[in-house]
């Protein structure tokens, strides 16, 4: 009788503790860490916007330079 009670108690506390156990950090070997969370937050698109701005700026600069040199070539 006493044994059954103990088992029940242990099972009860384990059940309560289960969510706590689930909180322990994953081992490094469990999964390869990728930026999935960053994608979920949508913050990777901030970086995309930044890089896109830089590339667009560079491209516009190249076009401007190209036009300037073409104009000089026509004048010369």
């Amino acid at each position, binding site marked *: 009788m006493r044994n059954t009670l103990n088992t029940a108690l242990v099972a009860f506390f384990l059940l309560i503790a289960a969510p706590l156990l689930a909180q322990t950090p994953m081992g490094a070997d469990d999964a390869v860490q990728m930026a999935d969370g960053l994608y979920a937050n949508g913050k990777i698109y901030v970086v*995309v916007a930044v890089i896109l701005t830089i590339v667009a700026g560079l491209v516009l600069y*190249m076009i401007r330079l190209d036009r300037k040199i073409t104009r000089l070539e026509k004048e010369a």
Partner: protein
Amino acid sequence: MRLSWWKIVCILQLLIIAVAGLIGDVPAKPILNETIRNYYFHVPMWFGMMIFFTVSVVYSVKYLRSGQLKHDTVAVEFANVGLVYCLMGLLTGMIWAKYTWGKPWSNDPKQIGAAIALLIYFAYLVLRNSMMDPDKRAKIGAVYNIFAFAMLFPTIWIIPRLLESLHPGGMGNPALNPGDVDSRMRILFYPVAFPGWTLLGVWIATLSIRLKKLEEKKLHHA
């Protein structure tokens, strides 16, 4: 002015790689993690550099055969862009190494080989600028450029393949490990990232060549 078709292609490729390179699917690999995306940005620097240095040495040989200074101009401007790309490749590699290998410079054979190649090409520019006579400068520069290109073989292609390295690809291949990169990445690399960055370098080089021609014309008239 209408842009040439290849400049429009270059712009489109760069814009595509700026977006798809960051949000496209990549294989999940330990240690590499998301830095595998450097494949779209760091690796095209080296591919581009090899192409520019090859163009440069071809025009140096052309100059030696023809004696026309315009060939020497092409050679030196492509060497310039090649140097910029080499420096960018080395710097981006160091940033990446800081977070994957632990430190930016670990005297890895690939790093040392690339640094030696960089210094040899810097010497090309220093050597050229040490001479005032344009014909002498072009001739000695062209001869040195052939030597510099020959030195690319051991420093970039042979020695890194013989020694053990931390670099992805490991033994045998200095950069690309066929097991790390899958078809999702290859389809972005070969048709988009590699030609896009290379065309940008060609664009910069052609602008410099045109500018130099204008300067020479101005000097001629003055």
